[in-house]
């Protein structure tokens, strides 16, 4: 009996590994520190009222971005651990099992718990403001989306210290990820954590589609929307059609693992390849979900800092529409090498190459936005400019990978690893960093320091190339992804050393950026105008940070670049002009937070197949939803006096 308990605890708490002890200690310490700070400064109530129960999209956006930065840190540590292990041949820093867990969590976290919340966070921060709305269509649901993402991420990260991390790669291919070859809770963490976050994302997609379609300021027709809003609309559409596929794929594998079904098993008629199909039918659109909003941000930033209209607005929109359509018909290129017929591979080769056409159109339109402009090299602009050549290399190696017979040589090699990091970092991460510097004043009321920003940009961008360009060659030399070690004598070492140096350089660049955030919070220039960059779109029409209700009067829109037009016409005052009317706003609510944590416990129960926990927690979740359904007084009016007070405090009231 005691031996049983001991054995259980040893597995449950993953005993015997110094790295995990370190993680245990740091988690406990940071939790103690957080509790202490909150209690010492009497901030518990503030935390609950202002953040945990908020349904204000602007605050939810900030929470998403904080979570994304934390996950970028975690995923980055994973990356550095991996690089440390494979810098030299035959290293013993990490063993095989440990390395497998780390590359699995690195990939999963970076895509689903870093890139996704970063993008959704930016959408929350910017879209309602850009379309002149007071919030999203469903603010309560929006809060629930965030908390579902958050508990999904927490559940996934918990695996490291309780029960063991998943170890079958972020693609989690069956049969390797099936119950037979990979028993234990690790893979369950992956399935349930992603499921929770995925449901949250699906709700975000529904929410932003409704918001953008229905809540635009009067006069803002679809073709007068800012490009980031366009990209968010198209992204939301892809989310709505792609994420249910992930839901199904995860659910089926969960049912396989927990209830002995045979969807993806080798035995009893299961089809392991079906997982690859379902996973990539979601997975390929997913990469456009994380890149299109970045495209939108680049369009905003490049136009703003060239001080010039976006070149080829309509072409920019239609190319995004085309990309989103093509994104659903290329998934098979992820497994050209699974014995398809020449005809099938031909079709998917060509459909994949075809994506280069609308993407090329976008690149040239950005270049011609710069053309005849007055280019201002701000930090946000540097990230956007660096995107063009870096993404170009990533995109074109993508075209090379689309050539199926050539892919037989690149597939799963470091050439592929280099490619997708080039596009995901050079595209998504650069885009998010650009957005971070661009919208930071709108979120927090002060700009980030330009000098520190540029230092972090150059360190990160140069290191990024030092890290990933050599990877193409290591791949051509025959090094495959996910090898925890390699033997001597293959000539791989020199380039691997360079790659590791680049990886640590990126870490340094990130640290400088974090320092910049700290420095600017204390000493950074406050933005009194609400329009620090000479902005063109409506988010710059309100204060920095925006007031709770965004706009005292909903602005009237006549053209694209609506705010620029207002400035030219001298009508910017219309937003804050008395008299006011009471503003209808939704109430804060603790229910999304509570419901998400109940779902966390239901999920945790499923991970360990503890149905005594999973079933009551799931039932309690239903109960919260029922309570919500019976809730009728979920909104309030901001009285005129309060609006007047707020507006005069901003100095905008005439």
């Amino acid at each position: 009996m005691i031996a049983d308990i001991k054995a259980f605890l040893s597995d449950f708490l993953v005993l015997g590994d110094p790295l995990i002890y370190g993680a245990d200690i740091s988690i406990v310490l940071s939790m103690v520190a957080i509790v202490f700070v909150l209690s010492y400064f009497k901030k518990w109530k503030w935390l609950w009222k202002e953040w945990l129960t908020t349904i204000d999209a602007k605050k939810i956006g900030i929470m998403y971005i904080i979570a994304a930065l934390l996950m970028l840190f975690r995923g980055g540590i994973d990356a550095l651990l991996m690089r440390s292990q494979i810098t030299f041949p035959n290293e013993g820093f990490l063993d095989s099992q440990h390395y497998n867990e780390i590359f699995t969590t690195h990939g999963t976290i970076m895509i689903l718990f870093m890139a996704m919340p970063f993008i959704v966070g930016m959408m929350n921060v910017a879209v309602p403001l850009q379309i002149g709305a007071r919030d999203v269509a469903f603010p309560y649901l929006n809060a629930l989306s965030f908390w579902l993402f958050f508990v999904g991420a927490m559940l996934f990260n918990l695996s490291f210290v309780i029960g063991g991390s998943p170890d079958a790669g972020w693609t989690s291919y069956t049969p390797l990820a099936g119950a037979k070859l990979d028993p234990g809770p690790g893979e369950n963490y992956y399935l349930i954590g992603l499921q929770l976050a995925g449901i949250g994302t699906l709700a975000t997609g529904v929410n932003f589609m409704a918001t953008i379609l229905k809540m635009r300021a009067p006069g803002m027709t679809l073709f007068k929307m800012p490009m980031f809003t366009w990209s968010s609309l198209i992204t939301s559409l892809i989310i709505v059609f792609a994420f249910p596929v992930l839901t199904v794929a995860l659910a089926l594998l969960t049912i396989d693992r927990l209830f002995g079904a045979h969807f993806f098993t080798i035995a009893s008629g299961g089809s392991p390849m079906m997982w690859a199909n379902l996973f990539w039918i979601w997975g390929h659109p997913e990469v456009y979900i994380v890149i299109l909003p970045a495209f939108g941000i680049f369009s905003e930033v490049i136009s703003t800092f060239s001080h010039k209209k976006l070149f080829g607005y309509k072409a920019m929109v239609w190319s995004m529409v085309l990309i989103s359509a093509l994104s659903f018909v290329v998934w098979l290129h992820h497994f050209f090498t699974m014995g398809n017929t020449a005809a099938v591979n031909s079709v998917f080769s060509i459909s994949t190459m075809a994506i280069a056409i609308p993407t090329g159109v976008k690149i040239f339109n950005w270049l011609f936005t710069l053309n005849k402009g007055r280019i201002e090299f701000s930090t946000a602009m540097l990230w956007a400019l660096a995107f063009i050549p870096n993404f170009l290399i990533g995109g074109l190696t993508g075209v090379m990978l689309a050539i199926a017979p050539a892919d037989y040589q690149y597939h799963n090699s470091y050439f592929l690893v280099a490619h997708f990091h080039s596009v995901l970092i050079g595209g998504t991460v650069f885009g998010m960093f650009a957005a971070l510097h661009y919208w930071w004043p709108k979120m927090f009321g002060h700009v980030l320091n330009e000098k520190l920003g540029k230092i972090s940009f150059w360190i990160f961008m140069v290191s990024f190339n030092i890290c990933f360009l050599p990877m193409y060659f290591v791949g051509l030399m025959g090094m495959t992804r996910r090898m925890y070690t390699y033997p001597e004598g293959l000539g791989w070492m020199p380039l691997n050393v360079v790659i590791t140096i680049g990886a640590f350089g990126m870490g340094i660049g990130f640290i400088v950026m974090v320092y910049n955030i700290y420095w600017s919070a204390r000493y950074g220039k406050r933005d009194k105008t609400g329009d620090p960059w000479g902005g063109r779109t409506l988010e710059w029409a309100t204060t920095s940070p925006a007031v709770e209700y965004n706009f005292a009067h909903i602005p009237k829109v006549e053209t694209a670049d609506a705010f620029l037009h207002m400035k030219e016409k001298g009508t910017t005052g219309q937003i804050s002009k008395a008299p006011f009317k009471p503003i209808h706003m939704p109430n804060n609510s603790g229910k999304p937070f509570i419901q998400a944590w109940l779902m966390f416990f239901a999920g945790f129960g499923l991970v360990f197949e503890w149905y005594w926990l999973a079933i009551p927690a799931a039932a309690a979740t239903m109960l919260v939803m029922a309570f919500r359904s019976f809730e009728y007084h979920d909104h309030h009016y901001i009285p005129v006096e309060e609006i007047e007070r707020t507006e005069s405090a901003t100095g905008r009231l005439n």
Partner: protein
Amino acid sequence: MKRLTLKSLGVLALFLVFLTGCTNKVAVLNPQGPVAKQQYDLIIWSFILMAIVVAGVLIIFIYVLVRYGRKNSKGYDPEDEGNAKLEALWTIIPIIIVILLAVPTVKTLYGLEGPPKPANATGKKVEPITIEVTSVDWKWLFRYPKQGIETVNYAVIPEDTPVKIKLKAIGAMNSFWVPELAGQQYTMPNMPMNMWIQADHPGDYLGRSANFSGKGFAHMSFHILAKKDANFDAWVKDVKANKPALTMEKYKKLLEPDIAGEMTFSSYPKVLDKKDAAMEQHMNNDDMEGGMNHDSGH
């Protein structure tokens, strides 16, 4: 911004060095057989096209940054918002490039389905040989059905002879990749697949699994030794005469998840030939041990 562009040019130069010079270690760029050669040709063709695109974009990029990267650049036109002719131009150019890539891609794809054309000058038809390759956690089994021999983690092939590789997996999926001889194909349980390899010259070609398959994955490398025809026959004879037989017991041992060194067997249990499909089904079943015990009774 100058640093940025210089760096990009440097990268190009570096790539060119790799393409032209020291390609010995760059396996993919060092094709040693007709299959890899076809893929290499496509890679080079696509690289040339991509290099042209990179050059074109970078020239425009550098030009606009230098020309308009000033506070009061001349020719500033904030209302410049589009040009239908230009849009058409940069839609058509990528379409042409895609067509230039798609045609050889499709041709090569169909070409790779059959055995490679004989590379030797005489053009005489060489009889292909067949090797059944099975990935097991975490090793490679090579079976020569005609010669009746089996090897582990290495295989010997005659030069200038098309070799038909029949791929199978027991356990997790892997991918069979010998970059100097041919691009990879997956090995998948319950889904037998074929591919062709051929070596132009005698040599030792390193292959490895390219698809992650668990703890021992990094150790799943193997050698393909290409020999002259006569030497290949001598090797077969030598194996037949001097190497031990693969017994059912040993075979079962090989199926257990572990890494292994190179091994050679003069024969393998004949039951595996006949009962192959059924055996595999058993081995892949959840009750793997149970299934195996039943069969070993034969």
